[in-house]
């Protein structure tokens, strides 16, 4: 077995987006020795692409806003499948987390009286999203990055974790490789925080960066943790549809937040039919399905989408409030959005499902394994409200850092073992594609996976379609066990894709199986054969995926009982 470098930390954080950075900052502040590992360069995480804002009941613009309304909106947005405790902590703590960012140097847009500006967003009762034009995610990442590099943590850039290691039931470390050299690296750690984001690259039309290959979901699953609610994949209603090479790139919901109007080819403002009260500011699941339906019924735009128009707000306003969108359309599509409408269609955006965690500590069912941000499940239920992701990763990033540092601190002995057999297996698995003389091109397999997911487990689903999809995935999994790559281990994207595919296949199978099992339509999960929500049966359970003797087991588990005082908030009317 080849020699490789070893590093020892109390806590290893995998992923350096918003959640990972916030977790690492907190764990460091608690006195833990922290290693922050990221697949790309620091500051390139998918969080930089978040545009619209961070949801927090600061009540700077709408004075009536408070955590209760935010909690109420979030639970209704998630169709009551949310982990209520997570939704509660999130709504209560988000304002503090946003202010804290400001104290670390973030510069949000301002109200006239000098406070943090907030804008309207789908599903939020009040103007709630703190923002910086349409580059809020970049502002957050930069602020956390600056804070992080002065917090004493070690950052391992362009380093990929491929395996989690355990001593008995407990986490004892993580194994991976350096992107640059392909050399292996071993981390000994008492606790591991997963902050790896989402799974969008399993789909062809997606707003996600290449890194969103479900690594954390797969690592957790293979380490024995449970995944919940994997059927709930959010299709953001507005991705770019034209030209083909930019299909899927996000058009921020802030366009609708700032007054953008959706129309079909007949010029009809079609949201009047689907949600006359909230119109374009309805929740994402409803807007996505509405656009999809309009196109299916033959009322789509020339390139098969809907028109989204903000030009009535005037050139100056649009350029000031939505500068990135203005440039994006100008440069990619040669469209001046201050004068013409955009063409949009749903794009894969976010997975609500993920690692089952304890709300307060973010601990998973595996001791020593924590998860925060998109890779964690529960917070958003069946559908996420816009802006709740950036606040989620701040609130639960911090809690993950706290939870993991406390856990690590309680392990007084330094006797955690790393099993040599596990390491040997990990290296063999990683080097296999170099050994396969015959075998498939990973890029081809990836493209086919994306076709399968789009065709069989897309916006609208049926039993037959999903079933076909599961069969196709089975065949693809077989083919993917024999991938062949060329070249050396040095910065070899083909080789890296082999491991990414492994993760995406696990996630895709979990997703398809959950979608098959849930015989109802709820939030982002739309079953044509079961068009209504079934509150009696499916409104009371989460889907659960776990590994059982090498096979993927699917089941359900009942929602926990919500306390009376929270029930009152959920049942109450607001506005």
């Amino acid at each position, binding site marked *: 077995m080849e020699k490789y470098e070893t590093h020892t930390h109390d806590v290893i954080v995998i992923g350096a987006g918003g959640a990972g950075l916030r977790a690492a900052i907190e764990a460091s502040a608690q006195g833990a020795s922290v290693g922050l590992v990221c697949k*790309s*360069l*620091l*500051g*390139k*995480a*998918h969080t*930089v692409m978040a545009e619209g804002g961070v949801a927090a009941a600061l009540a700077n613009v709408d004075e009536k806003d408070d955590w209760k309304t935010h909690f109420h909106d979030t639970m209704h947005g998630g169709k009551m499948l949310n982990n209520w405790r997570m939704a509660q902590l999130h709504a209560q703590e988000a304002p503090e987390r946003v*202010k804290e960012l*400001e*104290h670390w*140097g973030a*510069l949000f*847009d*301002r109200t006239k*009286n*000098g*406070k943090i*500006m907030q804008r309207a967003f789908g599903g939020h009762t009040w103007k709630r999203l703190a923002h*910086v034009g349409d*580059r809020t995610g*970049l*502002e957050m990442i*930069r602020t956390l990055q*600056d804070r992080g*590099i*002065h917090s004493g943590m070690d950052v391992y*850039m362009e380093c990929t974790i491929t395996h989690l290691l355990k001593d008995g039931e407990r986490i004892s470390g993580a194994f991976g490789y350096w992107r*640059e050299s392909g050399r292996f690296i071993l981390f000994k750690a008492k606790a591991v925080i997963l902050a790896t984001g989402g799974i969008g690259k399993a789909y062809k039309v997606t707003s996600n*960066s*290449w*890194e969103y290959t479900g690594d954390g979901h797969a690592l957790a699953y293979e380490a024995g943790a449970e995944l919940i609610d994997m059927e709930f994949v959010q299709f953001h209603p507005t991705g770019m549809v*034209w*030209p*083909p*090479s*930019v299909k899927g*790139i*996000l058009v921020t919901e802030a366009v609708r937040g700032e007054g953008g109007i959706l129309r079909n080819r007949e010029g009809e403002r079609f949201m009047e039919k689907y949600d006359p009260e909230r119109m374009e500011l309805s929740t994402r699941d409803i807007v996505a399905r509405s656009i999809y339906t309009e196109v299916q019924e033959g009322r789509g735009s020339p390139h098969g989408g809907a028109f989204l128009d903000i030009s009535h707000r005037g050139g100056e306003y649009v350029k000031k409030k939505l500068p990135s969108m203005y*440039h*994006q359309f100008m*440069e*990619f*599509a040669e469209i001046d959005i201050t004068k013409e409408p955009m063409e949009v269609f749903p794009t894969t955006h976010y997975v609500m499902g993920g690692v089952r965690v304890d709300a307060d500590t973010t601990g998973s069912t595996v001791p020593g394994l924590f998860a925060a941000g998109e890779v964690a499940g529960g917070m958003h239920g069946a559908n996420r409200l816009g802006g709740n992701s950036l606040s989620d990763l701040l609130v639960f990033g911090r809690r993950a850092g706290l939870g993991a540092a406390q856990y690590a601190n309680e392990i007084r002995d330094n006797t955690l073992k790393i099993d040599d057999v596990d390491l040997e297996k990990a290296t063999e698995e990683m080097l296999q594609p170099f050994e396969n003389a015959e075998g498939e*091109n*990973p*890029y*081809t397999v990836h*493209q086919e996976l994306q076709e399968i997911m789009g065709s069989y487990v897309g916006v609208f689903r049926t039993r037959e379609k999903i079933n076909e999809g599961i069969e196709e995935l089975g065949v693809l999994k077989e083919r993917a066990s024999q991938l062949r*790559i*060329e*070249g*050396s281990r*040095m*910065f*070899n*994207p*083909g*080789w890296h*894709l082999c491991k990414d595919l492994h993760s995406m296949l696990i996630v895709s199978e979990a997703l398809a199986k959950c979608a098959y099992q849930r015989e109802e339509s709820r939030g982002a999960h739309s079953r044509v054969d079961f068009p209504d929500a079934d509150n009696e049966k499916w409104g009371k359970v989460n889907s659960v995926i776990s590994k059982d003797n090498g096979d993927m087991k699917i089941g359900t588990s009942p929602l926990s009982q919500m306390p009376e005082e929270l029930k009152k908030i959920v049942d109450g009317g607001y506005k």
Partner: protein
Amino acid sequence: MSVAKVRVYRGDKNGGEEMEYEVPLEEGMVVLDAIHFIQANYDGDLAVRWNCKAAKCGSCSAEVNGMPALTCKTRMDSLPLDKPVTVYPVKTFPIIKDLVTDVSWNYEVRKKIPPFTPAKDTEWIMYQEDVERSQEFRKCIECFLCQNVCHILRNHDEKNEFFGPRMLIKIAELEMHPLDTEDRKEFLREQAGVGYCNITKCCTEVCPEHIHITDNAIIPLKERVADTYFDPLLWIFSKFKAAD
């Protein structure tokens, strides 16, 4: 379908060569699409950095037909396609492999910049007109194209003396933050080497975020440093103050 010829630099620190590939054109295609086509169909190990493909992460910097650019933002139809399109790694940083260079120096110098330092009793009130100056610099996506075209770094390799435009706008952003209290003037002069900049504005020209790097950040920083260290009246004044 028409086809473009794309010549990509393939190699590592030990040397390399141009390889030519044929890439079918698609409407609206960008250079990064062509690179991805080459990876998927010809050379799976072709190394390139990219993340978002939406001009927001700044990972895919390269030199396209000799011009520094984000490959995800450079449309094929903006280039003369009767000739081969050349794609090379950026020049200022050492090559790792193919289009990927070692940009770690940027992360090292960035750590040295004294961070945001608010006063203890700060009331967190700021006005839009006051935050806008810093906000401009915070649009930076760290593509390092400005570092790549800066003569001081590119031609003279003065990395020990000069932090480059990216880091100067980072410092400007902190210096112009309405609630920051740190004084970075000595740091700017001694460590960041603001005096080295000779205002050729190459950095501003290549910035994909259209940040006015030279006019709005570097020149005002130079003026602050000059006022403090070289203005005779202020210098005498500071001596009297010190004597108090």
